[in-house]
């Protein structure tokens, strides 16, 4: 009988960053994330664009709205995990701010468009308003991994 906890020869791939919640840092982490996707997953250009744009919109929301009421911006984190078993890519973008009131009449058109893009470009998205911040979870299904030899590094 197979040992149930024998490690898979293909490990999950992971991308983890925490950066200042400002426009310049967001652009930097977006570019790094795009590079990580291209080196770890086998996706057509349209899918890559969709994923990078969706993640950007979540980051941009944090940079624009999370720390508005605070003297200095805090940080925003990105944690992406690709499951070698299910092929799902899950990206969680989290900040420790308090987004401006969720009054739809106050919502700027840009933010409304950003949220709409996240919904359209991903296979699932959830938005959590927590006591200590906001979390966006994006799911992208059916993402194939670049084949790797057992024991090869997959951390980024």
């Amino acid at each position, binding site marked *: 009988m197979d040992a149930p906890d024998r490690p898979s020869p293909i490990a999950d791939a992971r991308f983890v960053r925490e950066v200042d919640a400002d426009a310049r840092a*967001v*652009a930097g982490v977006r570019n790094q994330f795009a590079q990580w996707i291209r080196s770890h997953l086998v996706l057509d*250009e*349209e899918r890559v664009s969709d994923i990078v744009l969706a993640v950007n919109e979540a980051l941009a929301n944090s940079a624009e709205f999370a720390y508005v009421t605070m003297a200095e911006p805090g940080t925003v984190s990105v944690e992406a995990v690709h499951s070698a078993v299910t092929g799902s890519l899950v990206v969680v973008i989290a900040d420790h701010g308090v987004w401006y009131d969720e009054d739809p009449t106050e919502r700027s058109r840009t*933010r409304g468009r950003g949220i709409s*893009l996240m919904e*359209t470009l991903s296979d699932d998205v959830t938005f959590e308003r927590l006591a200590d911040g906001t979390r966006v979870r994006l799911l992208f299904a059916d993402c194939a991994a670049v084949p790797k030899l057992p024991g090869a590094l997959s951390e980024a």
Partner: protein
Amino acid sequence: MTFAVGEKTVGNVVVVSVRGAIDMLTAPQLADGIRASQGRGPKVVIVDLSEVDFLASAGMQVLVAANENAGPDGRLVVVADGPATSRPLKITGITDFIALYPTLDEALENVAV
């Protein structure tokens, strides 16, 4: 690709060419560039995104606002092709009210003034 906004005139049409990524960081520069071009009162402003490799909602909002700013005697059209630019413009429905052409040549042919 470093972000850059350039402008040239082709007859009565002003072409605003953009290079690089248009996001919350660079969108204000794009807005400034388009505003300056529109300020000269051309009949048509073509925003050429052929060399743009990323277009965020912040950039799309600049296009929408510039289109509204074009006024009754002006017009704004966009050149874009590919998954990073024309696709988001279509997905968000912006192409329902802003004309989109895949190449600058096609745009120039269609906006002849």
